[in-house]
């Protein structure tokens, strides 16, 4: 990042390559939208470049880039709510079906594959219905695997608030998925 701050364009493209997956995934999971992920991820990196001199040396770059991505995702959610163009479930199903073959276990039967696909689809949809403030914390913790302290920094919230939001989000998600998980547990 130090080289990027000194206008090194090659360092910038390397930085994008290294973080594009995590940034794209965060945006996609928070917005439940695959179609616009590339544009939004690009916007995150443009902001990184434009504000490169505001980056504090010594601080964690992932925290900074996630802060930018989280703010952009929040703005996008609000913009979509205003336009009443809320989450597209079809887009998520498409994402899941596109990505599934890459992760599918080769020993898994067709039936098991369908079951897993169903469960993942339901989880993705359930995440999208969790209120924004809880969803962001949940995605950062349980999908991106950030530490509580880092999430607190990204969201600009006290650690206690982050913990309580994550707990609430997990509870909501569990309640939403309870019927499906019960069905799967049944012989």
């Amino acid at each position, binding site marked *: 990042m130090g080289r990027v701050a000194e206008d090194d364009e090659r360092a910038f493209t390397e930085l994008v390559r290294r973080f594009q997956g995590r940034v794209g995934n965060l945006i996609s999971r928070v917005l439940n939208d695959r179609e616009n992920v590339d544009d939004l991820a690009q916007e995150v990196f443009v902001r990184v470049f434009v504000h490169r001199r505001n980056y504090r040396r010594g601080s964690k770059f992932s925290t900074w880039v996630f802060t930018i991505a989280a703010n952009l995702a929040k703005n996008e959610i609000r913009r979509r709510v205003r336009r009443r163009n809320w989450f597209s479930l079809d887009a998520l199903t498409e994402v899941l079906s596109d990505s599934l073959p890459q992760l599918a276990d080769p020993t898994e039967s067709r039936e098991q594959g369908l079951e897993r696909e169903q469960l993942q689809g339901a989880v993705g949809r359930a995440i999208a219905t969790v209120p924004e403030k809880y969803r962001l914390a949940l995605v950062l913790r349980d999908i991106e695997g950030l530490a509580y302290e880092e999430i607190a920094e990204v969201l600009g919230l006290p650690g206690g608030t982050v913990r309580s939001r994550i707990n609430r989000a*997990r509870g909501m998600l569990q309640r939403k*998925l309870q019927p499906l998980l019960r069905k799967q547990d049944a012989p």
Partner: protein
Amino acid sequence: MNRCDQARRLFGAYWDDEVTQAEREWLESHLAGCPTCRPQYEQFARTLETVGSLPRTDVAADLPERALVAARRATTAPDRIAVAPAKPVWIPVTATAALLLIGVSALLPWIGTPVGQRVFAHHDGRQQKMSEPYIVRTTGPAATGATAAVIDSLFDHSEDVEFVLDPVVLHRGRAQAPSRLPQGVQGEQAVISF
């Protein structure tokens, strides 16, 4: 709070491995013996496992190049479309207020002063109170008509309007100023009242 509620409150911290050794031992022994909490924790763990194992979203392979082009454009162009600064509100408000003030001050001598109290200044400095105009009462059908239809000629302006001609001092035989009076008319001052 009963033991099950207490256990459920620890699910998240236990999953995140953020419990103390004592809490861990207590929760594990509770889960081993509680037919309600054990399946609940299993469901909780399964939910989070599934969330964590969701397939990752791939972004376009050329994103670094695209981002660089967009970043160059963003640094050369202004961040936002330049918008002309909004005109301060106080300018039109002050202008309107000033116009109103001028208008009111111009009308002030005529507003609120009854006509009877208005003073008419003569040319020679004398002042005379103006009288109220009044409708000339006449007999006949015209007098019974609607007041709104009364035409101006029905008003008697004899006391309102006074034309004072320029005083011309005439001397017998030789006038100091060339007289504009018709030949044969003599006088010192002509005052015509209507």
